Structure formats: structure tokens, C-alpha cells
């Protein structure tokens, strides 16, 4: 008679990842309706379908139902399983899109996750793998998720539109998380960076470095920006490009038919690929970019990044401009401040929520819209409310206003982990 945990209902495809991730963690089914219902091209996009497929890979006993048009999604989560997984991400979004959610889920698997993700490592929309490696992993470490097996390795770089990058992410599992008290970000002691160039002249990276340094040197002398020039197979795919936006109407639509959950539940989802993209002339996907990370004395990492426009889209970008703009972005991030940078705010807040029933505190910069929505989702999934205190900057020359987030963990424990 145990009533199945009452499901939550949402409309629209925005924040799909948050909803599915929180649903998986809380065990509450979620129904998302009206996904691009009024769009000319309704339903789930390719990258979202790929994300759902990834969730299916790492869970056990999940039940996913999508209607014919792909506008309604019902997701009943199973237990997080983990293990060795490989996944080909959609090239429409970067690997960061998938990796961000994996970071949320990975510590609560049954078996330690070791996943190979293939796709676009650096793009303009999502946080790149470099940035996540530099900023998200330290956040994980703060919560006691560390050890040798916590690793994020970039094997190959792939730029849009072709992709072809490869990333290995492995994460240990934890039964419980430590509460954190991060109220003092400390002072920035060094700035590191990575200027990469793929299928362009290696000189590009050096030009980026010079221009970025010219800005940052005014603040701190300890700057080192690595240049990373990938060649050959390691520089991504010579792949077929994406269909143009107008063409996207005949995208690969995945439809999952309602099928009964199998006994083991591992492969409960049957994917039917309706169309295959026709072979296109091969093009290369060159590009370059810069990611900067500022490290403080207290182990806080703030990051900024910029990437060149993908081939065939937008005007060409000068490496000097890119370097300068990226440095300014980093300064902007420093101005926002906080103990966790703006991309990982939601990750830190999630782990605070999932902690023991203890008080966790974290000082953040201004909350990003994504984080604000994440807080709302946290409330609906876990009935948790954060105490939000603004800390005005005052006289100190330490950037903008800060927000002190405080919460009591819900006493989450990893139900998937086997007891031996």
C-alpha cells in the first residue's frame, strides 16, 4: 500500500537537467509536459534525448516514457547504478552539459562511475571540461568526495560543430557527505589558465596568452597560462556538420514506447531511431579558446572562459580580443566573488542539501538565474529552504555584494551503495 512518491509536474523544457537530476536523487517521478509545444519543431531536442539516454545508462530500473511528438516526458527514476559507461554526447551541446549533471549524481552510485564521454569539449554555451575540471572537482573535494579515483581527464579536444572530443570522468562513491562551512573565500594567490587551439595555428594560443596577461598582470604577478595545442586524432573529429537550423525539423526523433519494466530493469527503454542523418560533406571543426582559473589562499577556484566562434557561424574572432575579453570575464567573476564560482553554485547547494542533518554554510556571489531556479526546484523536491543573507560589500574593495547561504541537510544517504 506504499503510495508511490507523488510525482511532480512541470511544463516546458527549461531546466530539464535539474528536474531529472533531482528526480533521480529524490526518487520522485517527474512529468514534464509541453516541451516546446508551440514551437515549429516541437518536442525534445537531440541533446536532451541524449541526456535522457545517459540517465538511462547510469540508472537501473528507470522508466522513461515519451509521447509520440516528444512534448511530454514522464520519468520515474530508478537506482543509480554507475560502473563503466561510455556515452556519445550530442554535438549540439558541449560535454559540460552532461558532465554538470553527472557531477551531481556520481557520488551516489552503486558502483563507482567511470564514464567516457565523447562530443564537444569546449563550446560557447556550456561550461567547458577544462573549467569544470578546475572548479567543480575542488567543490566535490570540499564535501569529502576525493581520493585517487576522482578524476576528469581530457583525452581529446573537440570543438563544435564536429565534436570528436573525449573525456574520461571517474568519481568515487560516498554514503554520506560532509557538511561545509565556506564563509571566507580568501585572497587570490595565483591565476592559471589554459589556452588551447585545435586545428589552427599553434601561434594562436600564444597570442591569447599575451593579451590575457596584459590585463591580469595589473593585479597579481603569479600568472601562468598553459598552451595546449592538440594535433591529429586528439584534435577532434573531421565530422559531418549539423543540419542548419531550418533543417532541424527532420532531426532524429527518439520515441520511447511504453514498455513494461523488465525484471532487471536495466534496459527498460527501447529507443527507436526514426531517421538517420544523411551523409554530409566532411568538414573540420577548428577553434581556439582560453579558460582562466583564479585560486585563492583558502582553496576557492573562480573561473572564466571564452571560445572562438565555431566555423561558419558568426564573425572570426581575433585571439587578442578573445584573451582580453576572457581576462575581463575573470575579473568580473572575481568581482562577483564567493567561495564557489557562478557555474558551480548549484552543485554546491545541492551537496549542502544532501548532507547530513547539520548546518552547512557557503558564501556565494550573486545567484545566477540557473541557481535561483535550482533553489526552487530543491524546495519542491526536498522541501528544503535556504537561509539567504546578503552581505553588502561595504568599504572593502572586494567586489560586489555576496550572499551567505545556510541550510540544514536533509540527511540524505546513498541508498544504492551495497553493504558488505
Amino acid at each position, binding site marked *: 500500500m506504499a503510495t508511490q512518491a507523488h510525482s511532480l509536474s512541470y511544463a516546458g523544457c527549461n531546466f530539464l537537467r535539474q528536474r531529472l537530476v533531482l528526480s533521480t536523487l529524490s526518487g520522485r517521478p517527474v512529468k514534464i509536459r509541453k516541451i516546446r509545444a508551440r514551437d515549429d519543431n516541437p518536442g525534445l531536442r537531440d541533446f536532451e534525448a541524449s541526456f535522457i539516454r545517459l540517465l538511462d545508462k547510469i540508472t537501473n530500473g528507470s522508466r522513461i516514457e515519451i509521447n509520440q511528438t516528444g512534448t511530454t516526458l514522464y520519468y520515474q527514476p530508478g*537506482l543509480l547504478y554507475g560502473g563503466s559507461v561510455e556515452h556519445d554526447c550530442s554535438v549540439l551541446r558541449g560535454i559540460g552539459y552532461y558532465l554538470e549533471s553527472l557531477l551531481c549524481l556520481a557520488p551516489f552510485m552503486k558502483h563507482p562511475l567511470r564514464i567516457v564521454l565523447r562530443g564537444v569539449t569546449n563550446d560557447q554555451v556550456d561550461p567547458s571540461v577544462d573549467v569544470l575540471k578546475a572548479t567543480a572537482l575542488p567543490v566535490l573535494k570540499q564535501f569529502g568526495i576525493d581520493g585517487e579515483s576522482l578524476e576528469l581527464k581530457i583525452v581529446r579536444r573537440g570543438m563544435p560543430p564536429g565534436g570528436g572530443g573525449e573525456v574520461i570522468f571517474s568519481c568515487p562513491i560516498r554514503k554520506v557527505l560532509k557538511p561545509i562551512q565556506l564563509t571566507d573565500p580568501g585572497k587570490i594567490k595565483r591565476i592559471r589558465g589554459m589556452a588551447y587551439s585545435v586545428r589552427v595555428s599553434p601561434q594562436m594560443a600564444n597570442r591569447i596568452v599575451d593579451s590575457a596577461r596584459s590585463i591580469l598582470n595589473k593585479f597579481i604577478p603569479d600568472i601562468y597560462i598553459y598552451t595546449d595545442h592538440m594535433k591529429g586524432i586528439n584534435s577532434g573529429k573531421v565530422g559531418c556538420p549539423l543540419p542548419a537550423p531550418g533543417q532541424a525539423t527532420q532531426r532524429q526523433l527518439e520515441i520511447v514506447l511504453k514498455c513494461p519494466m523488465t525484471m532487471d530493469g536495466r534496459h527498460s527503454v527501447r529507443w527507436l531511431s526514426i531517421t538517420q542523418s544523411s551523409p554530409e560533406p566532411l568538414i573540420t571543426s577548428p577553434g581556439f579558446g582560453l579558460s582562466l582559473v583564479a585560486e585563492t589562499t583558502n582553496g576557492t577556484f573562480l573561473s572564466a572562459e571564452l571560445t572562438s566562434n565555431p566555423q561558419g557561424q558568426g564573425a572570426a574572432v581575433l585571439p587578442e580580443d578573445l584573451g582580453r575579453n576572457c581576462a575581463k570575464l575573470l575579473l568580473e567573476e572575481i568581482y*562577483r566573488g564567493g567561495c564557489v564560482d557562478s557555474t558551480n553554485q548549484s552543485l554546491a547547494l545541492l551537496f549542502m542539501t544532501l548532507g547530513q542533518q547539520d548546518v552547512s554554510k557557503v558564501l556565494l556571489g550573486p545567484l545566477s538565474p540557473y541557481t535561483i531556479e535550482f533553489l526552487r526546484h530543491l524546495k519542491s523536491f526536498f522541501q528544503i529552504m535556504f537561509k539567504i543573507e546578503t552581505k553588502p560589500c561595504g568599504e572593502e574593495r572586494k567586489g560586489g555584494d555576496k550572499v551567505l547561504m545556510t541550510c540544514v541537510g536533509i*540527511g540524505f544517504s546513498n541508498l544504492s551503495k551495497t553493504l558488505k
Partner: protein
Amino acid sequence: METKDQKKHRKKNSGPKAEKKKKRHLQDLQLGDEEDARKRNPKAFAVQSAVRMARSFHRTQDLKTKKHHIPVVDRTPLEPPPIVVVVMGPPKVGKSTLIQCLIRNFTRQKLTEIRGPVTIVSGKKRRLTIIECGCDINMMIDLAKVADLVLMLIDASFGFEMETFEFLNICQVHGFPKIMGVLTHLDSFKYNKQLKKAKKRLKHRFWTEVYPGAKLFYLSGMVHGEYQNQEIHNLGRFITVMKFRPLTWQTSHPYILADRMEDLTNPEDIRTNAKCDRKVSLYGYLRGAHMKNKSQIHMPGVGDFAVSDISFLPDPCALPEQQKKRCLNEKEKLVYAPLSGVGGVLYDKDAVYVDLGGSHGFQESDEARPTHELVQSLISTHSTIDAKMASSRVTLFSDSKPLGSEDIDNQGLWMPKEEKQVDLKTGRVRRKAIFGGEEDESGDSDPEDDEEMSEGDRLENSSSDETEEEEDAEVTGKVYIADKGAKRQKFEMEEDTEIDLPAFADSDDDLERSSEDEGEVEEADESSEEEGSSAGERDILDSEALEKGSKHSNGLSDRLNLEKTMKKAALTTSDSGHCTAEEAFASEDESEGNSSLSTEEMDSENEAFMRKKFPKPSQVVSGEKRGSESLTDETSDIEDLLKEEEEYKEASNYSTETSVTEDNEEDDDAREELGGLFRVSQPARECKYKADSLDCSRFHLDVPHDWDLEEVMNSIRDCFVTGKWEEDKDAAKILAEDEELYGDFEDLETGDVHKGKSSLDTQTEDVEEEVKEEIDSSAEESAKKKHLDKKRKLKEMFDAEYDEGESTYFDDLKGEMHKQAQLNRAEFEDQDDEARVQYEGFRPGMYVRIEIENVPCEFVLNFDPHYPIILGGLGNSEGSVGYVQLRLKKHRWYKKILKSRDPIIFSVGWRRFQTIPLYYIEDHNGRQRLLKYTPQHMHCGAAFWGPITPQGTGFLAVQFVDGTTPDFRIAATGTVLDLDKSIKIVKKLKLTGFPYKIFKNTSFIKGMFNSALEVAKFEGAVIRTVSGIRGQIKKALRAPEGAFRATFEDKLLMSDIVFMRTWYPVSIPAFYNPVTSLLKPVGEKDTWSGMRTTGQLRLANRVKLKPNKDSLYKLIVRQKKHFNSLHIPKALQKALPFKNKPKTQAKAGKIPKDRQRPAVIREPHERKVLALLDALSTVHRQKMRKAKEQRHLHNKEHFKAKQKEEEEKLKRQKDLRKKLFRIQGQKEKRNQKSSLKGPTEQLK
């Protein structure tokens, strides 16, 4: 006798006594060694072996660390909930007596009848909730899960009973609470020695069960049916000072031991369907962990529910204020037991409970201060106004069915259901609202009740006290608001008959006008009783409106007021048709109502309604517009409107669901409710755009700073190590401060404190002369503070220096936990409870009221206060059902073994449920092999389909919870290991086949498979014959379907049977049936029986199991073994030596006739002669035999004589020889002597 000489005393030379004497003797002689051997002989105790030394050190360290517990964060609240004391024991052991005595001991009150938990204040910082536990195993299991302390009563005259052991085992499984044994019936022992023996025996048995040294109390005897005061006092003292170690399950889950239950179901629903699902509210102290609103709970014995609402109430049994007092005043010794009818004044969301019994009379309430007369009048009326209102009826039309309040009240929230009657003995007055079930029906027809009610009504009308007035004012104010809502709802009403909002609420409807008129006419006809009832009805209507209105009260803007004033006139006229006595109020208090709405109601309703997320003001306004629009064109087509409404609903759904607006966190029903009155008019386009916008976590800038400007750059200068540091972190500052500190320290020693005073102070002194006094004091204070700071800093430094190197990992961990605990306490300390509840949830120790919907009606109808009601909070995804694996061991005291697929009742987490487990054992290769039965004395695995419970949780299993058996009832115990959805349990399946063609080592085998495809699946599989020849499947054959070629390590025989061992996965039956024992009728709660086993079913239906014939035992008949003759080949025969050759001479055949000799026939004479000869020969033979015997005897004797002779002869010879040798020897000696002498003589 006397002469028998006494044994002489012999002194002891050994033994302790001798030693002692020896020592004394030595001491007397001043020779004794005072110092021990270690000192006397240090060499003997020196380190002999470094290895042994290391080992012994290791051992001591091991023992030391074994005593450590893993440190946990101390999450006990500052004001902890009462300690749950479970008084447990077999029947007739004295449980109730003990509880009564304990209550009397602490509170000086005597409770005659105890039902349910009783909460008492036992000390300045401690409260107890005492509850009795009977022998129903359901109750035992439930209470063991919530108990902090168990008083285990044991009848000493009888000894331990099964229940005691069962309960101990249950406790062991669900975390071990403190257990204290209490021996009763000790007065039945006549002899002291017997008593002592019994005590000792019981004590030692108890110790083996709990832990050595566990406290066992002795209650020696009864005095006037009660235990002795002194003993109870001692027991009470033990309980009040007891310390508890947190139990894992209890600290990680919130739970409530409910001490009150009320039915809040809409009476109308009950009337229409007596078996409808109920809405109940449960009250109790929250324990364990923080509880969040809307969380999942489990009620053992009932089922899973979602909390629909939770609110905290003032503590009904509060701890005495923290005062410097040595003991409790008599007044503060409180007791609270609503189920037993004891408690103070209780304030609920919707009711007030007054108890005049006991020393504590009345407590003040903030909303109403009842005067003494009022209370008296309240007491004198045995039914409350609401009840009267509810049961009164009004007939609107002459031929219509009378309308009752339940027809109007479709919310049902404000009317509590009380199934307890007024307890006249305790003088407790409750709001008796008899709506439930049969009571309801009887109540309606009861003329007495009606009369009483009318009386009460009159009283109410005439009294016109403050509270009533206020209420009226509020109510009338809200009528108008509700009116608008009603108008909006009008169209719905016509469609939907379920919403029975009375039509006369609307002011300008012709139809209703007429109905009002009719009502008026009727009213005239009716008696005064009716009058009262109509007033009551209006009240109900009003408060109904109140609910509706209050929801939106905040959002109402000025516009609303305007509208109100505009409609005022119309409204009063319309209302006049109805109101009798209160009409005046209505018109007078209109303006007041509005104000009261904004003040009074805001306070009370704010919370609930903020949670309901009502729309923003702008939206409300538009909603208002909408309402007014509909008002104007009310004559238009209803269909159209309905359509429009739907559209709006859609729109509102958009806005509420999408992440853009505030409302998306709400549940669907809340949204509907919201949509009922106001429409959110947000352009759907925009919503859609936002709802489907890009999902990206990056925080993009809208207005980037210009980082080339100097001031912008300066704004972040201090974020870098190169920037300015804070006071307390700047290295230079710290150095300077330290110096200052030491300087000051020296000053301190000399007594000069003022040297370090800051220049600021002096400045202020200079400037503000007139306030010098104050400044002085402040300066003094600051100096003092500084002094203290310095001291603290010095102490810290010293501590840091001192502790360094000393702290172990364990200490660090403990310190960390302690710090966290302090932070947890301090973080929300300064916030008020309302805010705190939002952040951390309802914290343990609060007295909360929990509303639950969709409770089975049996829970209310069959409510038995003796049974504990527990609300156990469930963690994340603990509410879902899945496959659970356990490590299980059959209890060694359980007499049977358990069978796979037999339904069994588990108690895991909060739950008790029946399920069908499969038992398995893990082979060495990790295969989980199905077992038919549990092993006797070994752990095995079990897997079942049931609720997900965290790993490491203990569980127990019982086969039946109904009835009593003399045997031990707990069948198995263990822990949850895993929650894997892809568990694979397999059972062995042997496929057999027969060879039909045998080559050398290859055989063709048939009969194992049915098709070539099946064979193909098993290619390469290992097969074996019964005789042990191993082989492998090679390939399918074409000819007989399913035959295959196989190779073996040896040649098969045609008679061999070939088999293959395979593993077949078995599926776990998805059967999960919660034990709903609380839903059983009163008195039958221990008779819950779920699914029966096949064995039981067979027994019940008298179905005999048809056994397999091959499995039957039969008499063993051994057949005679026949051996065939040995056949030796001819060639071999030839080669054999003759000796070994088979002698194959043909048997002498029959002698032919011609060779046969003819028979001799003798003559008579010859015969005579022959006879004589025979006789003679016989005689001769006899003679000869005799002679032979004699000879034999003779020979024997002769032989004997001869032997004797021989012996003698030998003896003689021996003697002779002896003699001879002696002589010879002597001779030789002599010779030797002479020969020795010879040379010596020669030498001389």
C-alpha cells in the same frame, strides 16, 4: 569409646594458612619483605622479550580503542521531547499499577484509567511519556522502535516469560534502547533464602540477555494495591537521571508517538458515504530528526501517507522555566494524557479544550480572554455552538430537504470531529461535534439535543460577548469578499452539484431573491428553534466565506474596497431576508470587518496562505477585472463562459508550472484552488518562451564593468593577496598586536592596566565632558573586555601549545563533531519558530499537529487508544517499493525452518508488512542460488519485493501476528544489505539426455533439447554422465530434432544417462502487503492474518498433498545375486597347466542296463546267517571300541607318569649340574686366586 585416642594435631606446612603464618613469623623476626617482589628483584621483572612487550602493548591499545564509539554529531535539541518509557511485560505482572504509581510519584495525581501515552514532567529538564505495552506482537514491535527506555516487568514468582525474550529480541533488532528490569510479585516468596536465590537466578539470566550489570529493580511488595512509595521513588530517580545513547534509526528519522487523534472529515462526506476516506489530525511530540512539511510518513498498522499539513502548537506539558530552584513546585508537576482524558487547556488551530481538573486552572489565551462566567456557561452546555449549528437545519422551500450546515460546509477543515464523548468525571469540556457515522444520524433525530442547542444558541445571542462580536465582525467583512467568489463560482455550481454553496450568498440574483422570500415565509412558520438554527447556518456560511475570502485577503487592493462600498446597499437588502438577530451586526460592522480582516486574519491566516502562493497583486487586479466582467454579462451563455474559464485555467497552469513565476513549486490541487477565484493573466506566449528557453548554468553578464577604468579595477584590489588584508589576518598587524599583547601582559602583572587603552577612548573623553560618567563606565567596560580578550587569547595560545602533538585522530574527529553540533545549535537560535520551521523543518521537541488525508475510515471507527499510533517519517525514496536483499538467519529459538515463497511478516524500518521472500545462498563464484528452506544454523540471503529501506537497517520476521503460541514467535532476524533492482537468484536445472550412437569418445545424444536452436545456445557447455564421465556439447545434429554430437573423456555405454547442469533465474514475487492491524475492530487488533501459506490452505481445505511416487519410502527387497559361470576360452584352457584346467570330465553317465548288476535275493537261511553275523560283528565292534577307550586311558596315565618321571629326572640333573658348576666355580676361583698370587709373589 572414651578410650579411643584422639588424632594428634598436625601443623600445616603448605597452603594459604601456612604461608600467612610463615610471613607473620618472618615479620616477627624482622626478616619480612615489605616491598613487593618487583622492587626486591627488579631483574626478574626486566624486559625479557621486546616482541612480547610489543604484543602486550598492542593488546592494551586494542582493548582501549575497542571501547571507543564512532563519534557522532550530537543533534539533541535544547529542549528535548519527553523520553518514551515503555512499560512492558506479560499480562498480570503489574504494568498498569507501576504506571499509576510512577505518575503519582511524579505528579501527585492519581489516574484511574490509563489509555495511551501519558506525558509527565519528571524534573526540571526532563519529561517522560509513559506508555504500556501489551503482549500483542504488533504493539511490541511498534513500541520497541520508539522506546528510549524500557521497563521490563518480570513476575519473579513465575520467572521469565516468552514475551520478555521476544521483546528483548525485537529491541535488539531495532536498535537497543535502555532496558531496565523490574521484578514484581516478590512478596510471594515465603522464605528469604528462596527469594534471594530467585533474585540471583533472574538477575544473571537478565544480564546475559541485556548486558552484564544491567540494572534490575526489585519491587518487593504491594501496600494497598500499590507498590511501596520508597521503591517507586527510587525507580523514578533512576529514570530521571538516566542517560541515553542515540540510536541510529531514531536519530535519522522523525517520528511521533501520537497522543491525540481527531477526525476532520467533512461530515457531509461521511453522511453520504460512511466508509469514505477520512482526514485526521494527530498530535504529539516530534522526536528524532527534523520533519519537513509535505513529507512522507508511515503509520505502522495503517499505511503510508503524505503529510498534508503540519503545524506546531504550544507545548501542552511544558518544562518548568529555567529558574534557580532546587526542585519542582507542586504546580509545575504536570501531566498530559489526552487519550486518558487528562490535560490542561489546549489550543488548536480550530478548537479550545478546557480542563478544570487539577491544580492548574486556566491559562490566558491571546485571542480571547474568557471570563469566569463564560467558562462556566461553556461547561454547563454539553454541546458546543458549532455542534448545534451543524445539527440544526433550515428548509428553504416548503417541499425541499432541510439544509444542514454540512451541506454548506464543503471544506470541513474548521469543524473537528470528536468521537470521544464528554468526560464528566474529569470535568473536561470538549467541543462535541457529533458528525461521525452513526452518531451523526442519531444526533439529528434526537429532540433533546435540539433543545439543548437552541438553548445554547439563545445564550450565545444574548450574551454578545466580545469574542462573538469580533468573530461576527470578521465574518461579515468577509461575506462580501466571498460574494464575489460566489459569483464567479455560480456557473460552476450549476454544472457541478457537489459544490453546495448556498445560493442566497449572492445578492442580485432573482432566483435567489425569491428563495430568500420563501425562506422568510417559512421562517415565520417555524418555531424559535428554527430561528436559531438559521442564524447558525448563516454563521457557517459566513465562516465558509471566511475561508474563501481570507485566502485572498492580502492581495485585495483598494479597488476591492471601492467595489465593496458600491455594493454595500444591495448587499444589506439581500441579507436582510435572512438575518434575524445578527442583521444589525452585519450592517454595523461592515467597515470594522474590513479592518479586522486586515489585522486579525492576517496574523492567523498569513502562514497558510503564504504557502498557498497566491498571485501577485497585479494579477489579482486583473483577476478582479475578470470577475467584474463576468458579473456584467452574467446573462450570457454559460457554455461560453465555461470555455473561457478553461482557457484561463490553461493559462494559469502555464504560469504556475513554468519556472518563470513564483508558483511552480505548488502541487496541482493548490493550483486548482488558486484558479478557483482569481485568474492569472500572464501572456502565455512569454511564458512559453521562458519555459522552453536554453538550459544553461552559465551566468552571463548583462552589463559588464569596464575593467579599463581605475576605480573599477580598484573595486576588486583586495581580492588578491597583493591587496590590503583584514585586521586579523595581516601579518604585520598580527605581529604588532602580539607585541602589544605581551606588553600589556607585563602591565597586567605590575597592575598597570590602563596603558594599553586606545587613543579613541581618550579622545572621546576629551570631547564629551558632560557625559563623562557614562563614558567612564563604557571605558571601564571596554578595558575589562580587552582584558578578558587578552586572557582568552593567552589561554588559546597556551592551549594550542599544550595540546599540540597530544591530539589523536579520534580526538580530532570528536572535536570536529562537537564544533558542528555547536554550529547547528547556534545557527537558527535567534530566529523565531515560524522562520526556523521553514529553514530546518519542525525540530524534535516541538508539539506538533499533523493533518493526514485519505486515511481509511476503519482507523477512525476502530480507534483504540490502548494501541500506540506512531507516525514515522520516511527519508528520500524510502516511500517507494523495490527489491530488497537481506542477510537473514533463522532465530535459533524458532522451532521450524522457513520455506522459500511462504508469506512471512517482516518488520523493517517503521513498517510491518507481509511479503514473499526467496531465500538464497551465495556460492563461491558469486552465484545466488535459491534455497528451498533456510539453513538451520547459518546465515543465508533473502530477497523480497517491498519498501526500500536503507542498508544496514535491522529487521525481524514473524510468521504470524495473530493468536498466541506458547513458542517463541520471532522467526528470523538480520540486516538489509542491498537494494538492487537487478537481483538474480537462480535455481539448478538438470537437463538429461541419452546416447543413441556411440563412437569412440564421441556420442550422439538425444532427448536433452527440443530443437537445433536450443542446442546452438548451449554449444560448448559441459555435460557429464551419471557415472562421472565429463564431456562437452559440440554441435547439433540434423536427424532427430534436438540431438547433438558430444565428446567425452571416455567411451560411453548405451545405458549411461547424460546430464547438463544449468541455472534458471527465478523471479521474486511482487507481493507486498502492509500489516494493517490498527484497522481491525477494537479488541480484535491482534487478529490480523494476511496471506496464508500453502500449507495452511491445504490444512484448511483438507487437501492432501499428492506425493511423487518416486519419493515415497518403500520396503527394501534385496534380490538374490546370480553369478554366471566362468567361461575360459579354449586357447587359454589349452595353455593352462593341468592343475588349473577346468576339469571337464563328463559326469559318469547312467550305467546301461546291460552293465547293471542284478539284485541279490537271499535265502531265509542265508538271511539268518547274515543277521547273526551282523549281531556278532556289532558285539565285536562294541568290544573293540571299549578296548580302545581303555587303552586310550591307559596310555594317558602312562604318559602322565612318564612325564612326571621325566620332570624328576630333569630336576635331579639340574641339581647335579648345579652342584657340579659350583664346584667347578670354586675350583676356578681358587685357580684364579693362585694365579694372581703367583705374580705378586714373584714381584716380591
